[in-house]
């Protein structure tokens, strides 16, 4: 089967062509065809996965054809099949399939139904290419394709101007990242003359690229690429804006797959990052900052999708922290669990939005528990998972990241504390969202209330499947303390990154009791977060923030006020500060400023072209003279 790996990306490509060309004729069938294409790839991926997980499997490069062969440049169109790529294949096609099914229900009646599925399939295709590529070039093709599809899907409802602006912003940010990727590629090529992962790994561990400065430069360039795609500070502002697209798209692209491309790439290129401590520390700090800043922003958002978006950014920060300490398997583990629970949360929110007739403001929701039982219970599972309550999946992966932080170097404990704060915030904002949306009274008015309904089975089925995965996914990586050698994922991935692992300390350095204590701390932090949220938002009143202080006193929750002063207000202030200064002024301002500068220069340069031949000739001769002077100076 492995030799037929090309089938996996082929199916979505065919699906894209059929759904794209025949979108007028096919009608609703386009959705089913697209889903079937992804299902077919999923089946092939499962078969490949079983072959890969067999004992003693060694990675295979499946050679399709000679792509480019000029001079020193020799690039083959090859797919690399190993434990890492087969795992990602499962995530992409599996979750991709669920989201396709869900989309059939969600997008029903949309004018661009066929176009939507064509784009979705094209996205899956690019993502598969990214994951399967056996060298940086193929990976880059997928990398760009993914960015392009994301652009198309964010701007899908383009008649709203802000949406197309969001799409453009996402594209620009991604492009900045891609620049890093490209330059990194050129740097590697200039040094060793190859871009093949296998060859590079061998060369790297032989110490061919050993100059630390050069290596750090390469690692840094690639990390810039990862920052763009995986929405890290300072290139993260596009992701929340990207929520303009249809909700299933947010689930697929902006939670489960595309944003993890950066993590995948760094794991794939571990042979570069493991050698550069500077780059690793940099990744760690960026990850940590991102996790904290976006968690604080998430606290204050009132748009259900925005909360989830910032939460995604924050979780990605966690993954980068893991990469920063060289815990590649842990990062992949979190990618996996995050893909489950975040896709679940997004689809759940999609279901809510669907019921609310496209209203996304949580202040207008509330009390949805009784109206939408399935959505409610699955959403609750998602929240518990992301908050890190055992035995749901989020607990295991987050705990592992924390553990790795704790034992990392001199400042490991500081990082651990900061990470814990981020975890606390996570639990807080997620349960704030949950309480406001599902508990209490409905605040959306009678008209909407009569409308409320549970979503059709097409949409709830994926939710249930994802909920089961989100609940049970953690058992793929049971920590050493509970059972010896039970960390299936770790064992599975070890062959891929074996050599890098030898360079890093492992969790085993920690005593069992210390590990138990840390787990207890983590769980209690999560519970504290939930309780805080419960205290503040159990009886949420949308008007309260504006005027309702008197009403507030009648509620007999006298301690609520103290509570608000002690926790809620500082949180809110922090959040407002982070949003206003860091995001809007700092980053958006910076990007816009560069744009303005280019436009300014363009405007001025344009005026030189004043239409007069005399002036042109004069400028040309001036240029010639300058060239002469430079030439003579450089030679003399």
């Amino acid at each position: 089967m492995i030799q037929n790996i090309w089938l996996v990306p082929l199916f979505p490509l065919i699906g894209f062509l059929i759904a794209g060309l025949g979108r007028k004729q096919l009608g609703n069938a386009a959705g089913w065809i697209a889903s079937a294409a992804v299902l077919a790839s999923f089946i092939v991926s499962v078969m490949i996965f079983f072959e890969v997980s067999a004992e003693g499997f060694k990675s295979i490069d499946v050679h399709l054809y000679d792509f480019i062969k000029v001079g020193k440049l020799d690039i083959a169109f090859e797919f690399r099949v190993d434990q890492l790529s087969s795992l990602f294949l499962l995530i992409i096609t599996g979750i991709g399939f669920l989201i396709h099914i869900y989309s059939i229900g969600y997008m029903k009646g949309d004018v661009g139904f066929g176009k939507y599925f064509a784009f979705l399939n094209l996205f899956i295709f690019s993502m598969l290419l990214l994951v399967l590529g056996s060298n940086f070039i193929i990976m880059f093709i997928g990398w760009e394709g993914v960015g392009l599809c994301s652009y198309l899907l964010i701007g899908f409802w383009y008649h709203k101007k802000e949406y197309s602006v969001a799409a453009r912003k996402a594209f620009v940010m991604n492009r900045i990242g891609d620049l890093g990727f490209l330059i990194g590629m050129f740097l590697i090529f200039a040094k060793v003359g190859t871009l093949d992962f296998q060859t590079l790994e061998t060369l790297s561990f032989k110490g061919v690229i050993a100059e630390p400065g050069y290596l750090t430069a390469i690692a840094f360039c690639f990390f810039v690429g990862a920052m763009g795609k995986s929405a890290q500070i300072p290139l993260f502002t596009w992701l929340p804006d990207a929520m303009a697209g249809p909700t299933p798209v947010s689930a697929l692209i902006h939670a489960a797959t595309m944003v993890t491309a950066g993590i995948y790439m760094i794991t794939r290129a571990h042979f570069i990052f493991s050698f550069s401590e500077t780059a690793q520390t940099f990744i760690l700090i960026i990850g940590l900052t991102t996790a904290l800043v976006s968690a604080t922003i998430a606290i204050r958002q009132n748009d259900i999708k925005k909360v989830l978006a910032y939460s995604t950014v924050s979780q990605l920060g966690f993954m980068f922290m893991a990469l920063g300490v060289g815990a590649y398997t842990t990062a992949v583990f979190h990618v996996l669990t995050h893909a489950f629970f975040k896709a679940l949360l997004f689809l759940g929110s999609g279901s809510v939005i669907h019921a609310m007739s496209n209203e996304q403001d949580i202040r207008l929701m509330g009390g949805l528990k009784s109206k939408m039982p399935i959505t409610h219970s699955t959403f609750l599972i998602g929240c518990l998972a992301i908050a890190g309550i055992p035995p749901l999946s989020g607990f295991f992966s987050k705990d592992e990241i924390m553990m790795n932080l704790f034992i990392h170097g001199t400042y490991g404990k500081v990082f651990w504390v900061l990470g814990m704060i981020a975890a606390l915030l996570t639990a807080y904002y997620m349960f704030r969202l949950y309480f406001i949306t599902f508990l209490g009274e409905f605040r959306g008015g009678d008209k909407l209330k009569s409308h409320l309904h549970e979503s059709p089975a097409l949409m709830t089925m994926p939710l249930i499947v994802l909920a089961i995965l989100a609940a049970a996914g953690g058992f793929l990586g049971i920590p050493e303390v509970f059972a010896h050698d039970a960390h299936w994922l770790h064992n599975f991935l070890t062959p891929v990154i074996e050599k890098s692992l030898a360079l890093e300390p492992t969790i085993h350095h920690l005593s069992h009791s210390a590990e138990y204590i840390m787990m207890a701390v983590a769980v209690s932090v999560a519970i504290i977060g939930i309780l805080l949220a419960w205290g503040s938002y159990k009886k949420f009143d949308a008007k309260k923030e504006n005027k309702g202080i008197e009403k507030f006193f009648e509620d007999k929750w006298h301690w609520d006020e103290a509570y608000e002063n002690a926790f809620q207000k500082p949180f809110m202030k922090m959040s407002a500060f982070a949003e206003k200064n860091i995001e809007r002024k700092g980053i958006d301002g910076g990007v816009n400023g560069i744009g303005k500068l280019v436009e300014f220069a363009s405007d001025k340069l344009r005026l030189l072209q004043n239409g007069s031949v005399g002036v042109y000739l004069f400028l040309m001769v001036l240029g010639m003279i300058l060239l002469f002077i430079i030439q003579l100076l450089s030679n003399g």
Partner: protein
Amino acid sequence: MGVLMRRNAIVILMCVELMLNAVNLLLVAFSTLYGDSDAQIFVFFIMVVAAAEVSIGLAIIVLMYRKVQSVDINILNRLKN
């Protein structure tokens, strides 16, 4: 310099021809220096091509003159920025 300073398209054309003539002279001089006849043949070709170029150029200038009643190059600024 004539090309740069003049505003009359015909005069500019004449100045370009002067440039070509300078090249011709230089080629002939080098030709005697090396005792090689290649350069002299080159000169003939330059003359032929220059003649072709001038005929086209004058046609274009006449066309322009019919439109704007002037051969001043600074009038030509409809295409800019």
